[in-house]
């Protein structure tokens, strides 16, 4: 991929990709960087660069987790509490607290957390999420629903629109 196009892709996708990477696990920055380096070498460039980047980032993080590589780096990063969301959104009256949302996401099941982040902030469709996570589209959708219900109970305990069907 030409440098100019790579820079534009970086500007358009890097923040969303980094958030998805944090939802998958640490070291998220290394995985994002590695994904963009692979995108630079990719010939021809993928049709959907962002979906391609998400797939590469997730596979890289899972591979590092399996092989134990960069465990020390991951443990060190876990002490630094990386920021998932911008603080400016807290100024909006209707917005949720970014830190509380981050903590709620961290407490979710890993698949629920990844699907929610990919769909809400990564703007990936359930079909794309299903391809990335190697599952069916309906499974991705059910995982999203159950995760949202769990978070909703956290932020609004009185609201239980579907009668507690969020258990996995």
């Amino acid at each position: 991929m030409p440098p100019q196009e790579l820079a534009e892709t970086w500007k358009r996708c890097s923040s969303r990709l980094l958030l998805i990477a944090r939802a998958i696990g640490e070291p998220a920055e290394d995985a994002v960087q590695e994904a963009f380096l692979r995108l630079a070498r990719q010939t021809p460039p993928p049709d959907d660069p962002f979906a391609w980047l998400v797939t590469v980032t997730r596979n890289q993080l899972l591979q590092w987790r399996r092989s134990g590589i960069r465990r020390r780096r991951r443990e060190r990063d876990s002490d630094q509490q990386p920021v998932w969301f911008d603080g400016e959104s807290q100024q909006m009256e209707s917005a949720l607290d970014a830190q509380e949302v981050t903590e709620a996401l961290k407490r979710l099941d890993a698949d629920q957390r990844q699907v929610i982040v990919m769909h809400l902030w990564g703007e990936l469709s359930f079909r794309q999420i299903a391809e990335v996570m190697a599952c069916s589209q309906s499974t991705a959708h059910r995982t999203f629903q159950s995760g949202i219900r769990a978070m909703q109970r956290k932020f609004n305990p009185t609201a239980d629109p579907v009668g507690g069907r969020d258990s996995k």
Partner: protein
Amino acid sequence: MNRSNEDDRQREDDEIDQAFIARLRGLTPASVSASADDGPEHSLGIESILYRAGFQAGQDHVRRVSIVRNADTRQWLSLLAASVLTAVVTLPIALGIGRHWRSPSPTPVAGQHDVTPAETVNAAPVPSDASSEAPDGAEATPSVKSNKWRDIHSDWHLTTLAGGTPLATLTAFHSRSLETLPRSNWIALQDDLFDAGDPISAGDLDTLTATFDLQVQPR
């Protein structure tokens, strides 16, 4: 893709509180620059990405060139190894064949006439000319083909080397004596000195005189 997204959203609308989802969507993912404040080793930016991408592209180029060069070197080394192996295998065979077919280098018998070794080699295989130029007294001698003569000489030489008697060998295997052979075709190795130990018997002088067309002056 848009159609798929609309279907997804429609399914969400059926079951999930859209207001809560909207509030979640109101959060903005942290920018990369904000999360890269951990230190220089954590710096994550497009500059470092482009720098590393360029560095890796250079590395790939060098590696590719090196692979091509190594392939050429391997090809030449394999050719060289094949040549050496062929030489090692064929050289002993070629030496054996050469030893088997090598014939002893002939030299003229001392006292015949002064000729060069090249002339001797050229003259030896032409016995017909020699027989035509031979004197009348020598016409009664059996004609010996040059190849046969060479074989006889070879046998004689081998027998001599083995310790046998040349004259006895000739007599036994060819039913001829030295006197019956045309002396103009005699050849011997340089280190084979003519054995002049046999006394000349009666009649040899006449034969020698006729053979070499000599004039004997009586005293």
